[in-house]
């Protein structure tokens, strides 16, 4: 696929942009935060998003989707990133629908995917058990029982964990923490007895929760994918998640940069526009270059998902998440420094970008994690 958007994709991007900027600008996130909204996003907004078909953008037609692919979903995520829009798009669509579509049985697909597309179910992935992303460090257990499995364990920082209807849970059916083998995935309903979610208040005002599973009984039909061999499926879902998240981060970086650039063109100091200072100009160009590089990587990585380029997907996912993380860190820090005093105030929106940046960098592995993985995948 050429690294350029086609007409359909351009249209989707335009639609997404005007929708998000109209209905869910940064101000909306501030409102959710200041009102201590219990859901953490607007259910009305999510209804409108799913009405637009966004939850089915990357889902195959046979399950009610629209087959615009992950490039399409990436464009929507990017636009949401620009406005820091809070919604279950990542948890439910990027992760949930992807995991079910890739690993689910026909029955699972037929029951879950349409519910996701229709906006009736919130799904999420319950994976990490420590403050640092470590997908093989799974201690949570799923023991075989007469009717199915019994789950016990604790998951940390689960996205939308306190409002999810269903969890995709990574648990250990054999082996020990640190091993890839022995990890299995399960679909667990939130109202299943023994499931308890405690919401956390995060710096980015987005949803995360600690979820505990205490003797949670599920049927054998709850298994998603193969027993003991859930890791390759999980890895693929994560790689897609990393790339989708990078698309969201790309939107954030572009918007933060754009706002900074505008500020440089209007703010005066010592009687001249600060954008005329050469040192700031050069630093702005460095940001511009890094963002352009990220654009190419994100587009290439999204295309690789659609092209089912299994061979290059892991390397592209790690390179993209790491590069996007570095760039977003740079841009969010430079933005605050260039906005200076006003950027330090809560009243100004630029700080929201800095706050969301670090959380997005952490999810599914920060730069350290992915540079290490990138090096290993490249054989060094």
């Amino acid at each position: 696929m050429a690294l350029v958007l086609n007409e359909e994709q351009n249209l989707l991007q335009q639609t997404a942009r005007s929708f998000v900027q109209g209905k869910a600008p940064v101000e909306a996130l501030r409102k959710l935060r200041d009102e201590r909204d219990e859901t953490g996003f607007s259910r009305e907004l999510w209804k409108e998003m799913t009405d637009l078909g966004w939850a089915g953008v990357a889902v195959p037609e046979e399950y009610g989707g629209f087959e615009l692919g992950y490039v399409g979903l990436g464009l929507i995520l990017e636009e949401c990133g620009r406005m820091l829009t809070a919604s279950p798009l990542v948890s439910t669509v990027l992760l949930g629908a992807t995991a079910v579509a890739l690993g689910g049985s026909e029955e699972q697909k037929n029951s879950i995917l349409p519910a996701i597309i229709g906006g009736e179910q919130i799904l999420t992935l319950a994976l990490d058990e420590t403050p640092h992303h470590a997908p093989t460090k799974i201690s949570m257990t799923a023991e075989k029982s007469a009717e199915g499995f019994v789950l016990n364990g604790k998951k940390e920082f689960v996205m939308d964990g306190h409002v999810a209807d269903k969890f995709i849970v990574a648990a250990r059916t054999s082996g020990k923490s640190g091993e890839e083998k022995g990890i299995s995935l399960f679909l667990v309903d939130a109202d299943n007895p023994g499931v308890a979610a405690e919401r956390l208040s995060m710096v980015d005002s987005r949803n995360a929760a600690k979820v505990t599973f205490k003797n949670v009984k599920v049927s054998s039909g709850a298994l998603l994918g193969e027993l003991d061999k859930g890791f390759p499926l999980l890895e693929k879902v994560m790689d897609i998640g990393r790339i989708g998240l990078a698309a969201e981060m790309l939107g954030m970086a572009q918007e933060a940069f754009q706002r900074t650039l505008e500020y440089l063109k209007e703010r005066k100091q010592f009687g001249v526009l600060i954008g005329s200072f050469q040192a700031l100009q050069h630093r702005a160009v460095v940001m511009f270059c890094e963002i352009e590089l990220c654009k190419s990587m994100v587009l290439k990585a999204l295309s690789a998902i659609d092209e089912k380029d299994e061979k290059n997907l892991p390397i592209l996912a790690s390179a993209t998440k790491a590069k996007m993380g570095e760039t977003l860190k740079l841009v969010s820090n430079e933005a605050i420094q260039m906005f200076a005093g006003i950027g330090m105030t809560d009243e100004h929106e630029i700080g929201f970008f800095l706050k969301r940046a670090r959380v997005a960098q952490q999810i599914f592995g920060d730069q350290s994690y992915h540079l290490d993985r990138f090096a290993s995948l490249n054989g060094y």
Partner: protein
Amino acid sequence: MPDLEKFRAETRAWLEANCPESMRQPARSSEEYYWGGRNGKFASEDQKIWFERMLEKRWIAPHWPSEYGGGGLSKDENKILLEEMRRLGCRPPHTNFGITMLGPVLLKYGSEEQKREHIPKILRGEIRWCQGYSEPGAGSDLAGLSCKAEPDGDDYIINGQKIWTSYAEKADWIFNLVRTDTTVQKQKGISFVLIDMATPGVSTRPIKLISGNSPFCETFFDNVRVPKSNLLGKENEGWTYAKYLLSHEREMISGIGDQGVTKTLGELAVERIGKQDGKLADSVLRPEIAKLEMNALAFQLTVERAKDQAKAGQGLGDVASMFKYYGTELNKNRHELIISVAGMEGLVWEGEEYNEGYTARTWLRTKGNSIEGGTSEIQLNVIAKRVLGLPS
């Protein structure tokens, strides 16, 4: 020298006997310091005891002249006292911009009356001061201020607005830069005025920061009448006093963040991330942490070298010009690494289990270090011109 060693021994013994245990723990927030003032409250009985004992000992400002209530210690003695306090972990008994900022200017440029009026009140914690320097829209161009003072008999009438006034809503008096001459070059028409904030027409509004805290205010002056006797030094020469104060402030800010740091970054990383084959398990973060600690060591040695130079009578030298710039950038980097080391836990905002977001809030607060008291860019400009002699 034996005298100094004797002083050290006595000081150590006195501190050990008199500093309450709880006053030897690092403070987690500015509220845990005693700021004094008309509405000042002690946060604990220990805090009160500690303040009163130090006040009695005249060690609230140990090196200020004793005639105004200072401790009258020599430089060497003062250094020993600070070293011994640091060794025990003693908190400062009283925090007040009257001590750290206004005091040195007042002692150097103030009239005898002003010194006798203000200094004892500062030391006794009766009056809490704040600083009125920055204005909205002026930013780094500090001298481009427009808050004006017009003469009216024996008074000035002050009108205008200040921003970034630290804790103004809790302060009693403000030392304020005002414009008294608009017809000359901007630096030459500035005066330095002391204002009681209880005067009619003074009002404040806190500014909430990205860290969620509100250490700063906007302060408004609406026809505020101030006696001319509250002018510090001479009219229109305030810029000189302001710069003298700023040079003190910059040194102070470059030290920010070192307070209360008990663990090294490396130790923190090992605790949070663990080791593998004898090395920090995160092999990518490891060299970044090592670089930061290497630079922090180099910076600390450089501050030491500057002090040794000054002590040897060679002056602080060019090197001191970089402290504000380098120190604040270093501190920002340190906190970026701290949140990397903490992972998601470092990004929690509230909750007792997460220390009410202390890690994240501190990280956010450090972003201001390279802005307040002259941005890093301003520092770089100044060093390029004044120290390196590069052309305009």
